[in-house]
Structure formats: structure tokens, C-alpha cells
């Protein structure tokens, strides 16, 4: 196992390291460079074709939102020492329950809560299998995935509708060129994703909860020795993380407005890539999800416009080829939390 590359001890003025506000924000400069290139390209493209560029920019964030929420779910789990490859299933369960509740009650708030509760229960199941049964966590996650896909497809009935999720443009800010459509004219769940990044970051690195969580993920027996209740932390954190996966599932409904069988379509797994690519850090997750969202938005726009005489399938490959290429070229060897995947045995 390799260690992380030397942590950049950046001066407070360096981009992305708002030390005073957020404490240590360690930034991976390779990801940051990628984002900077995209930003410059966007500004240039905006001069050339403002409408298309705005569309891509807005779509980037929209596509990134569910990935951010889902990746944060995975991140909290892994930081507490539990691998969660069941995010895909959690999102599907949340989207299904959220849709059914919203559809029968006509109330979106109830729908969101229902979705969060469903994914949270799945998170508790994962914690139970890991803590009480000491089951292999990859298997437990796979169970959630298969169950989520199976039970939602089994119970699904066509023809139901739910009220559509409103758009919340922020008055004043949404009129800004480029930035307005990109950041300030989205649905509530997209904002929730952006807020969650900051909240999880501060919680993880600035609070007692975060310190305990990281201790449990890195060295559970040491944490136990100083009186941290390892099992309790794992249960609680997986329940909280599940709520984020629930929001991620509902974020899919925000754009689709209807539940479809298997509508996650691999997003839960892509979120895992985003989490590892983001090096188990909330702002890393944000950057990685935005990169992925950008290439998704770009390919969708290029395909839509038929800008080049290239088969659409090749555009469809772009985000995936890009993710692999970036991981390979940058050689981002990540160091996951040390105690990950291992059941903790109280002594």
C-alpha cells in the first residue's frame, strides 16, 4: 500500500484552501488543474457560443449532484471503517419509496423523507451485518444492490405520477451570466448536494463527531481504548450516510419526475469512483463529481447538436474513458481509511 502523495501544505492564499473558514482543505492539485482548464475553456467557449456553454455548465452541476450525495454516503461509511458498495441499491430503494410516498400523498417533503428513511434503513442493515454478523462487507453491499433492484422492480407499477420537483432560482444571482445558470438556478436537491459537501467537510474535520468517526475508521481499538463506542459510531454513521444516499436517489427523481426500473443505471458505482477519485475527502468528491458531470454534460450536448460526424456511442464513452484515463495518468494512488472492511472485535 502506498501513502498519499506529500500533502501540499498550502499557504492560505492558495486556491481552494480557505483555511480560516473551513480548517485544513487539502486540495489535490491535479484535480484542481483539471477544473481550472475546464473553467478557462468554458469562459472561452462562452464568448463563442453563450447559449450552448450555459447549457453545458448548468447540466454539469445537475449531473454532479446525485453523484456528490451518493459519494458522500460512501465516504462517511468508509471513514467509519465500513465499505459500502450498496449505494446503488440504496439510491434505488430511496427513489422508489420516495416516488411512491410522493405519488400517493402528493407531498414532496414526505417523499424525500420516505426516500431518506428507506436508504437509511439499508445503511443500518449494512452496519448490522458488519458489526453484529461480521459479514463480509462487499457481500453485504451486493445484497443491498440485488435486493434494491429486485424489490423495486417487483413492486413497481406503471402509470403513477408524482408532483414535479420545483426549480428554485435564487433571485438576483440567477441572472448572472454563466455562473447564474450554473450555480443558482437549480432544484432543491442540487443545492442540497453543494451544501452537503461543506457540511460533511466541516463535520468530518472540525467536530468531535468527525474526530471519532475518523478514529473508528483508522484505528478502532485505539478509539475503543479512549472510550469511543465503535459499534455505536458505525451504526449511527451508516444511518446518517444512508440519508445522503436517500437524497441522491430523490435527486434522480428531480430530473426524471417518475420512477423507472433500474433508473440508477450504475450511478451508485460511479459514485464509488468519485469517492476514491476524490480521495475520501468531501471537496475532492465535489471536484471529481464536477469533472465527471462536465464530461457527461459535454457528451450529451455534442450528441444533441450532432456537432461532429461521429457516432453517438463514441460520445457516450467520453465520461467513462475520461475517468479511467485521468486515474491512470495521474496515478492517484489513494489511501483508504486503515480499518476499512475489517470487523471490529471488542477485546
Amino acid at each position, binding site marked *: 500500500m502506498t501513502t498519499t502523495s506529500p500533502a501540499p501544505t498550502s499557504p492560505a492564499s492558495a486556491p481552494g484552501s480557505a483555511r480560516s473558514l473551513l480548517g485544513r482543505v487539502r486540495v489535490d492539485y491535479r484535480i484542481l488543474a483539471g477544473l481550472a482548464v475546464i473553467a478557462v475553456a468554458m469562459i472561452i467557449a462562452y464568448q463563442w457560443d453563450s447559449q450552448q456553454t450555459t447549457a453545458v455548465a448548468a447540466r454539469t452541476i445537475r449531473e454532479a449532484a446525485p453523484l456528490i450525495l451518493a459519494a458522500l454516503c460512501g465516504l462517511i461509511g468508509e471513514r467509519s471503517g465500513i465499505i459500502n458498495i450498496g449505494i446503488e441499491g440504496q439510491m434505488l430503494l430511496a427513489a422508489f419509496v420516495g416516488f411512491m410516498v410522493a405519488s400517493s400523498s402528493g407531498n414532496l417533503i414526505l417523499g424525500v423523507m420516505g426516500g431518506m428513511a428507506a436508504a437509511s434503513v439499508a445503511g443500518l442493515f449494512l452496519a448490522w451485518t458488519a458489526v453484529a454478523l461480521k459479514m463480509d462487507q462487499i457481500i453485504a453491499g*451486493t445484497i443491498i444492490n440485488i435486493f434494491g433492484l429486485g424489490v423495486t422492480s417487483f413492486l413497481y407499477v406503471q402509470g403513477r405520477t408524482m408532483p414535479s420537483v420545483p426549480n428554485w432560482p435564487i433571485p438576483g444571482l440567477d441572472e448572472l451570466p454563466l455562473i447564474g445558470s450554473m450555480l443558482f438556478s437549480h432544484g432543491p436537491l442540487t443545492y442540497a448536494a453543494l451544501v452537503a459537501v461543506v457540511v460533511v467537510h466541516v463535520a468530518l474535520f472540525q467536530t468531535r463527531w468527525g474526530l471519532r468517526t475518523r478514529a473508528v475508521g483508522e484505528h478502532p481499538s485505539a478509539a475503543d481504548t479512549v472510550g469511543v463506542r465503535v459499534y455505536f459510531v458505525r451504526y449511527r454513521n451508516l444511518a446518517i450516510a444512508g440519508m445522503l444516499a436517500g437524497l441522491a436517489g430523490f435527486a434522480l427523481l428531480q430530473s426524471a419526475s417518475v420512477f423507472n426500473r433500474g433508473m440508477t443505471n450504475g450511478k451508485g458505482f460511479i459514485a464509488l469512483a468519485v469517492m476514491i477519485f476524490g480521495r475520501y475527502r468531501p471537496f475532492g468528491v465535489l471536484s471529481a463529481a464536477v469533472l465527471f458531470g462536465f464530461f457527461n454534460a459535454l457528451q450529451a450536448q455534442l450528441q444533441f447538436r450532432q456537432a461532429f460526424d461521429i*457516432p453517438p456511442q463514441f460520445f457516450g464513452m467520453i465520461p*467513462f474513458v475520461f475517468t479511467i484515463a485521468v486515474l491512470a495518468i495521474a496515478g492517484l494512488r489513494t489511501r483508504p481509511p486503515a480499518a476499512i472492511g475489517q470487523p471490529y472485535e471488542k477485546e
Partner: protein
Amino acid sequence: MERLAWRQVLLPVLAVVLGLVSGGLLIFVSGDNPLTAYGGMLEGAFGDTDAVGRTLEKATPLVMGGLAVAFAFKAGLFNIGGQGQLLLGASFSAWVGFRFGLPAPIHIPLALLVGGIVASGLGALAGLLKATRGTHEVISTIMLNFVAANLTDWLVSRDGPWNDPDGGALARSPLIQDSAVLPKVGGLPTGFLVAVAAAVVIWWLVSRSTLGFEVLTVGANPKAATYAGISVTRITVLAMGISAFLAGLGGAIQTLGVNERFEPGFNTGLGFDGITIALLARTNALAVIPAAVLIGAMDAGSTLMQARTDVAPEIISVIQAFVLFFVAAPSVVRWIVRLRTGDDDRAIDLGAGWGAA
């Protein structure tokens, strides 16, 4: 010895029974009679020669998918790219099948091999990225699934090179030539025999060969393997390549024996099924066969079940999830059936490979 073997079978069998009972409860709650449903499923899966043939047909790619996942597990690798590898194997074997005219004894093995080898390239790429660049194979194989799906979609699309000229707007390849079709003997698919042979070869490879020993060593402890002079890079690439070869071969068998052409989007979900089967078989290559037949039988029987009772075929995924849960949680099974605690139900541990980049 005999007692031990019995107990090793007992837990998976109990897990399957409990899984069926749980699924039955869900069927009951949703307003149908579980006994009628399962009766239909059983008859649809084993009722006559045709049904058995269908079951074995369904089980064939599942054996291969299960072997692919199980073999990678041996090296501590998690291959969830079975779906993409299967698509590559299927499309390239279809190409050999329709493009070339050869005598059957050459044509069939050639088409199978080309399918497997092209797919193995996809797996080896993931292995190489892992060994040299530290790219986690879970990520790369998922990403490559989407790449392979897009690539094979294009190959047979209207603008693609392998499109069926008689297909109109349909995205599909031409039918393969008769000399490439895997025959049925007495209503039973020979492709299943190929899959069984593959399972035996993998069992031998893992438990009796030097390569197998190296793979197991790398899987158990890469550091110790390096110390013992085993190249972890070589084994990682090889293990992923072989794993992907198996999945690709599964796609090729399906193409030559059942579909007889390539159409995009067939057999989606094989990646997941492969994981279930590998775990149900506790990553033992020979045990993969009955595990795959079980899942294949549910699949084959689900049509008749739905015709009889209106129970949607998706119930089998739910049953699979329950079965997997009970297999992985022997303590729960023991608690339910009040079985004595045994020391034989060693837990399966795959999580250890997760962080080892």
C-alpha cells in the same frame, strides 16, 4: 471427512430454502399463492426436456460469469466488469461466426476463442492499470462496462461495420453461419458442457497448478508474494485476463448456442448474477455449477410462474438477495433452524482487497 463435506453442503442448501421461504412470504403479502408460484417455477425449469434445456441454457452464461468472479476473488480482485466482458465476447464471436466460412470443428472453437481473448484484453487492461497505476479494479471494470456497451452498440448499429443489412433499422449483427452454431444434443445445449469443462479447468488451475498457487498467494498477501519472488503485476494482469476470458467465453457460448447473432443489451445484469453465484459457491469453481443451475432454473421457470400466478419474474432477484444474505450469515441460519454451532463455516473475506492499491 464425509461429515465435513455434508456440513459444507448443508448451509448453502438451508440458505436456499430460507431464501425461497422469504421470497414466498413476499409473494404471499403481494396477494398470490407462493406454492402455486413455486410450482409453476419448478415445472417451467424442470418439467420436461425442453424445460431442462432452457434451464441449462440460462445456466451456461451464469456458470461462466460465476467462474469469472470466483477466479478473480482468488487473486484478491473484484471483477464487476463481467457485463462488458460478456458483451465483447459475444460480439466478436458473432463476427467470426458470420464473417468467415469454415468447417464447424474449426469455426466453433475459433469463434469461442476470439470472443474470450478479446474480452480478456479488457480484463487485462484493468489488471494492468491496477498493478502499474494503482487504479482500483472496481472502478476501472465498471467504467469499462459502459465503454464496452457503447462500443458493441456501435459495431452493430446502422452506421456500424457489423450491421445486419437485412435488419432494416434494427441494431444487430447478421445471423452466424450454420458451421458456427453450437448444436443441441437431444434438446440439451452443448454450450453447457463447455461451461462445465471450463469450471473443471479453473478448479484444476486453482488447486493443482503453480499459477494457481501464485494466484492464491497474491490473493492472500501481496507483500508475502513479492517476498517469495512472485511478480504481483504479472499475476494481477493474468488473473484479471483469465477472469475476463471466462466472462467473454460466456458471451460467446450464448451467441453461438442461443442467440445466433449479436444484439445489444442482452443479458444485462450478468455482472450481479456472477457475484451472487460466486459467493453462493464460496468461490469454489466446481460449486459454481450447481449454484448457476439453481439461479438459471429460477430464471427459466419464472415465465411459467408469471403465466400461472401473475407474480413478476423480478421476484427471483429478491430471492437471490435473500439467499446471498443467508449464505453470508451462517449465524442467522443457525439461529433460525437451531443448528449446533460448527467451526466449519469460515467467513468469506473479500473486503481485505478493497484498499490494497
